[in-house]
């Protein structure tokens, strides 16, 4: 395997590559993200941003208490987020646990949601603590059930203790399992990586290993998708594109609950990676409560008065 001709697959070449990356200016990243968060997006731009954000939502339910009924209801919502308004776009994907993949796929197909992909969280999500064999079979199981996107978690313990080769090899193996059938999103759990330098390293490591998307968090650990972390990851995909000519996607997940949060993310994308990334193919937002707030803001823009959660579904 070539790994874009940047590394040869050995741990040594990987370390050489990652060690020549410059460190992240923490103060600079935080103030840049804070500055971009002050942009005021109003009227027609806001309308465009809301619809774009809806089309980027990976509508997620990852609870122990999930049932087939809940997943089906969520699938219906994914296809027609607002049943009273057919101009609302479908969401980017449905994100569920492995055993719910076939239920989601079948239901989506039966209600005209063929175009909405199902993403499965894999490799012993959310901890990533399982043997490689189990992780591979976990992934294969999800793909066999119809998952078109695999959200895998990295082994943070290995990453933090410096076993970067191990983390790299795991991603490469899961990438091979995915083959042409499924997109691979790699979850870092940035809340556990401690520093922005680690986030930058993990981003390059995952991209070199063949990730199609890099994703901030599982949603089970706080802090999750903070704007500076997303900024660092967007810089990484931008620089990786100029290095290799390939655009890798970014998926912030966890803690994005309001329209304002989502629009801040879109501003970050536009100003950091560039407008080419403002598409569901390259930017997704992992969320559950966010969609209702986006719908309520959309209602407010249409009706001229503030909306109530009584008029959107309880998920």
């Amino acid at each position, binding site marked *: 395997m070539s790994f874009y001709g940047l590394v040869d697959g050995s741990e040594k070449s990987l370390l050489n590559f990652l060690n020549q990356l410059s460190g992240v200016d923490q103060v600079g990243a935080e103030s840049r993200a804070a500055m971009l968060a002050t942009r005021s997006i109003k009227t027609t731009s806001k309308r465009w941003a809301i619809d774009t954000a809806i089309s980027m939502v990976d509508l997620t339910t990852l609870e122990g208490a999930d049932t087939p009924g809940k997943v089906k209801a969520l699938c219906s919502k994914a296809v027609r987020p607002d049943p009273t308004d057919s101009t609302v776009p479908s969401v980017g994907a449905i994100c569920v646990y492995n055993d719910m993949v076939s239920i989601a796929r079948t239901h989506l197909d039966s209600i005209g949601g063929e175009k909405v992909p199902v993403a499965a969280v894999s490799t012993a999500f959310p901890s990533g603590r399982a043997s490689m064999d189990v992780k591979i079979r976990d992934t294969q199981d999800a793909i066999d059930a119809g998952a078109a996107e695999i959200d895998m978690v990295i082994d943070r313990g290995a990453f933090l203790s410096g076993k970067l080769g191990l983390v790299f090899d795991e991603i490469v193996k899961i990438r091979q399992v995915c083959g042409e059938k499924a997109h691979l999103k790699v979850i870092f759990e940035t809340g556990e990586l401690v520093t922005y330098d680690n986030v930058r390293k993990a981003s390059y490591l995952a991209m070199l290993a063949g990730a199609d998307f890099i994703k901030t968090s599982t949603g089970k650990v706080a802090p999750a998708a903070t704007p500076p972390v997303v900024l660092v990851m967007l810089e990484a995909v931008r620089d990786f594109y100029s290095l290799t000519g390939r655009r890798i996607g970014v998926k912030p997940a966890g803690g994005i609950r309001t329209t304002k949060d989502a629009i801040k993310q879109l501003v970050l994308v536009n100003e950091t990676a560039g407008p080419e990334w403002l598409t569901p193919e390259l930017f997704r937002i992992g969320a559950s409560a966010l969609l209702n707030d986006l719908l309520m803001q959309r209602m407010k823009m249409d009706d001229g008065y503030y909306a*109530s959660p009584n008029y959107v579904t309880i998920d």
Partner: protein
Amino acid sequence: MVATNRIEVKKTYKLFINGAFPRSESGRVFEVHSKKGEFIANPCLASRKDLRDSVTAARAAQHGWAKATAYNRGQILYRIAEMLEGRAEQCAAEISTTTAITPLKAQSMVSEAIDRWVWYAGWSDKLSAVTGATNPVAGPYYNFTIPEPLGVVVVTASDSFIDFIDAIAAAVVSGNSVIALVDGGLSVPAMTFAEVLATSDLPAGVINILTGSLDELAPWAASHMDVDGFDISAISKKKRAELKVAGAENLKRIYIADGKLTPSRILAFMEQKTVWHTIGV
């Protein structure tokens, strides 16, 4: 000795939203002057976004407030009266400096307001006994009628501190969460009242107070789909019809007080629920 050249410590007036004292999102303020034209304070001129934030806070707080026992709600409201008693002088001074009311009259007004608050507090655990019922039905059922709070209620007050206290107390005692809109000079004692609320164990968001322009905020409150009741007693007669129309979209209960101290003002923001229950063998 009190130094005469001491730098004055002036109070920054803010809003009261979700148990905190934020400035208006808009950054706007307005001036309050005494009857003689002397500058008194710069209260916040709340914007519709402050109102929206208040509704979100009030909605989040309402369930817990309604679920608290009536006894507990009464205790907390009584605690507010205790705290207000300690601030009575300050309140009276603020009323007399911002209006034409004499200091003596202002003091008796504040005492009256506290008494009324206690009167309302007492109703919390008596409402269902007095206005609920076990209804006679021809069948093997119990049939109960129980009063329940509406949800989020916006109230208005313009000139009188007593009206302000009446409007809030009548809505909050039954388990509603309240957003009070006040304007003009009343904003000054109203924010003192907010400081009383902040030290009375009242859960955050149950009462929110916005100072500013009633004309600006009332239409947004009337049309807000997540507001269940709206007391428009302080709105001028000319503007009321427009608010009633705006409130019709979500069947908002719109209420105008008649100035009497009566429990029907509490019931205005409650609805009677009737429950059928089989009689066990």
